[in-house]
């Protein structure tokens, strides 16, 4: 089989149906309603449905959500659905509760019915939240400063972090691409000095650099997911690093391309740029990239790993 970056048909179908659902969500639809809809669509059953191919499917779904500006704790909830023991899954997969990863004292989604997971001594563990005080955060999502302790252990944390990193990478790539494409559309319409501003190299070049980084980040995220599905997680941290930097650069470039309109509170960029920024610091944070493991020692990195796996 020759090299191809096309998604498998079933994975492409996931992206398409998530996209269709996002498009059908009425303007101002409430979070709870949207969340239930995603559950009905089968979003939180992806790990179960896709089994060996589930990271690729999750990345595709997350990228579509990023493109459509929907966040909520989907990355966390998908990670939970992929990694938590079977007896905890039902309400999460049904969309009745959200699952969140967090490290006290600051944790997201302080809803009493949310399931919180943390990391303790290298293991994932349920978090028993005793008291919570709401905190306004940059991302705009509900957060709280909590008193909490680790409860039931849920196995090694590495698979959780891997899955979360890939989901977040997908979202960041989608959000970044959407911002850059929207900013480029603005640049091809907005006229100053008798020209569309996209004709000025000072506007065009940063957009080009942003999309260059995002296009690479997309391939890395999808490749890292494919490798992880095949049991090799060595590209995961590089994928997240690449997606985070690319999305951040895209956000800054979009702010700048839109001029004053781009820095309005309700403007076309801030809702996404604030999340992109916070995701870099949110638990589970980016892990250091192990350069040698990610690069390998042969003449290729991404492709090499595939060849190795085929063996």
């Amino acid at each position, binding site marked *: 089989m020759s090299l191809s970056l096309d998604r498998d048909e079933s994975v492409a179908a996931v992206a398409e149906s998530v996209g269709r659902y996002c498009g059908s969500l009425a303007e101002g639809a409430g979070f709870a309603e949207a969340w239930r809809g995603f559950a009905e669509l089968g979003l939180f059953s992806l790990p179960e449905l896709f089994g060996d191919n589930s990271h690729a499917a999750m990345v595709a779904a997350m990228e579509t959500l990023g493109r459509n500006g929907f966040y909520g704790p989907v990355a966390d909830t998908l990670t939970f659905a992929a990694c938590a023991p079977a007896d905890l899954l039902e309400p999460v997969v049904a969309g009745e509760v959200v699952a969140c990863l967090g490290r006290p004292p600051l944790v997201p989604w302080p809803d009493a019915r949310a399931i919180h997971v943390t990391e303790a001594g290298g293991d994932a563990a349920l978090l028993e939240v005793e008291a919570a005080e709401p905190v306004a955060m940059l991302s705009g999502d509900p957060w709280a400063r909590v008193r909490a302790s680790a409860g039931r252990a849920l196995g090694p944390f590495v698979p959780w972090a891997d899955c979360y990193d890939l989901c977040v990478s997908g979202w960041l790539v989608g959000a970044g691409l959407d911002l850059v494409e929207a900013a480029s559309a603005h640049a091809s319409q907005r006229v100053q000095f008798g020209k569309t501003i996209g004709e000025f190299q000072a506007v065009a070049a940063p957009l080009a650099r942003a999309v260059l980084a995002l296009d690479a980040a997309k391939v890395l995220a999808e490749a890292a997911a494919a490798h992880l599905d095949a049991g090799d997680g060595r590209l995961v941290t590089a994928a997240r690093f690449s997606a985070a930097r690319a999305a951040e650069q895209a956000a800054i470039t979009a*702010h700048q391309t839109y001029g004053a309109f781009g820095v309005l509170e309700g403007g076309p960029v801030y809702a996404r740029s604030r999340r992109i920024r916070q995701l870099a610091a949110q638990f589970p944070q980016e892990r250091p990239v192990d350069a040698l493991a990610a690069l390998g020692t042969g003449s290729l990195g991404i492709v090499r790993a595939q060849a190795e796996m085929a063996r």
Partner: protein
Amino acid sequence: MNLSLSPEDADFLAEVQQALEPFADTRGFVVSNSTPELKAFYKALAARNWLALSWPVSAGGMGRSPVQEFLLWNEAHFRNIGRAPQGVGVVAKTIIRHGTEEQKAAWLDPIRRHDITFALAYSEPNAGSDLGSLQCKAVLEGDRYLVTGNKCWNSKAHTVDYLWLLCRTGEASSGKKGLTLLIVDAKAPGVVIRPLELMCGNMVTEIFFDRAEVPVTHRIGPENGAWRLITEALADERYVHFTPGRVRYDYFTLRRWLEEHGRLDDPSARRRMDELAVLVLQAEAHVLRLLATPGDSSGIAASNKLAHVNAIQQIARAAIALGGIEAMELDAPTSLHWRQTMTESIGGGTTEIMESIIARQRLGLAANR
């Protein structure tokens, strides 16, 4: 090279430091627009006639040098107090240079006493970087102009008494040659001002004029001759608005924050802070170039703005990167600076426009237009 302050300047700086101490952390850059605290600060400066520090004595000012004016505002920024009000800079200095004797008598005293305030009404929905294409129109009828059109992004305009309006009196196609400056009563019939919130919580506005009446005596400078007046004033103002004191304040705020949160011990954080310190010094270097270069300095003014904005944005981005999740609290100084500094590469002329000015003036390139 002489890098020391003269004895008079050093004495003045000491006096400024003492006078400004009670107003530290008025937070004029972020969150607040025109708070009572900021007003009290301006009033305290007015009581010393420092709002008119560099105006000529004949105009009611103190005739001090740009260096002293810089020292005053640099100190105000370093103490997180706030920027100079628009009236005392762009507006008053233009009236001093180009106003009639009657206009000087009418406007300058209330401005330096901070009894009246101004907002700049230049930008329009379709004319931002390309200000010369603005379309808001003023038509002379008898002894008054009738103004019709829109403005936007005007800092604090919903809180001020007067608008410093740049409008078109020439043909629609007259470009920079058909523009005129008018002073418009912000509460006049036919003027509607609506606030818009920026991502940092600060307010700008959109303004709608519908045949608003402006007495012809409120025109500053010649009809169709405003372009030279405003470019001269904008460059003039950059050492007052974009000071290294602000950069230094942001730097030390981050340093303190990292220290308090036990993150400064991390060697990579320390290295990043050392690199950022160099940007603080670079911002200072550019303002020194500006102060040491009399005459047409729009190229250096652009360099100063660019170095300033680059430094505060890098500091804000490092804050978020080094600070972890605690740095993401919406109103933590770290996240506030990130949100606020994002607006600085747009307001007062965008980074791309500053770069093209430098390319043209410093390197002789025909950049961008």
